[in-house]
């Protein structure tokens, strides 16, 4: 890929950063995105944060879509895709606002997308790059989801919970209309495959999060697993599509 091609791709890319109370880390994430993806639009979806996420994101030069009520990660990310769709972007990158995803790694996602054999590219922690560690229970859960999704989507996925992804126009169009609400990462892979999209993984490095903890812990884990298993096994998602 030539630098000119890359620059052209960046100028047609919308970076979607869902953020819920990420005032501490959001500026660094935005700055890093602007540094590593010059020319790309940066959109922060502020999911009803109680802190200064909105001001800090604006000060760092991002477009802020502020949800007046907390919708959860699925509704927030989808807002970003709706924006990307309406503004006519060819590509969208989803990256967490908590500093877990390194914006310098987006290069690998975009590169794979530009090869033209994927509509959705997922950055996987488990394909050899980086040394991300997870607890044994967490690893077990991830293995289970991996098997479930790989079976349902009829090809192998190693990091189904990764929220570090790149989409082409076709995927943006789909997710702007259909996107799961509660724990969208896993379900969205199955959804994308259901609608005939080509989904591929690329190895990326991920850091441990800078601030805060995972939103999925304790009893929520049980609900998370149950919900995902249900929607993946029964079919494509509950609730009215919007």
């Amino acid at each position, binding site marked *: 890929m030539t630098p000119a091609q890359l620059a052209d791709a960046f100028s047609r890319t919308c970076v979607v950063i869902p953020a819920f109370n990420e005032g501490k880390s959001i500026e660094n994430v935005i700055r890093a995105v602007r540094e590593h993806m010059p020319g790309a639009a940066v959109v922060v979806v502020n999911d009803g944060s109680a802190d200064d996420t909105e001001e800090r994101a604006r000060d760092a030069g991002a477009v802020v879509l502020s949800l007046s009520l907390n*919708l959860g990660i699925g509704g927030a990310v989808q807002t970003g895709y709706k924006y990307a769709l309406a503004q006519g972007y060819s590509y969208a990158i989803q990256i967490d606002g908590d500093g877990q995803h390194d914006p310098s790694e987006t290069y690998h996602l975009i590169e794979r997308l530009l090869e033209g054999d994927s509509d959705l590219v997922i950055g996987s922690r488990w394909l050899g790059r980086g040394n991300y560690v997870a607890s044994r229970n967490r690893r077990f859960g991830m293995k289970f989801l991996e098997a479930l999704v790989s079976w349902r989507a009829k090809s192998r996925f190693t990091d189904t919970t990764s929220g570090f992804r790149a989409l082409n126009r076709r995927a943006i169009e789909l997710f702007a209309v259909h996107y799961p609400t509660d724990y969208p990462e896993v379900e969205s892979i199955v959804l994308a495959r259901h609608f005939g999209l080509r989904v591929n993984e690329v190895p990326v490095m991920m850091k441990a999060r800078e601030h805060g903890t995972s939103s999925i812990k304790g009893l929520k884990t049980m609900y998370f697993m149950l919900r995902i298993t249900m929607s993946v096994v029964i079919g494509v998602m509950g609730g009215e599509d919007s």
Partner: protein
Amino acid sequence: MKGYILGGAISLVFLTITVRAIRKKQLTEILAILWLAVSGVTVILSALLPSGAVTPVARFFGIAFPSDMVFVFGMLFLLLFTFQLSVALSRISARHKTLVQELALLRAQLDVRSSE
């Protein structure tokens, strides 16, 4: 007999509550009609049960006791109604999500316009 009187009293109180809720416009039309019908049916049943007039109806459905029939149909009604409520609630939360998203997108557009 005491039980029937209590049942009748509760039915009448429920009917009053329903009428008040309708007057205060706390129910949409269709639900108002539904709850009015339900209170009406419970009032009529409390009046008819002691006389044994409902027994042939229960027999028709293969149920020995009229009170059992009331239980069966009562449960069935509640089951279907709560399910219908879940469906309605899911639909409303999906619509609510869309509205919140649209609002955020429109506000962002407005910000761009006012800064131009």
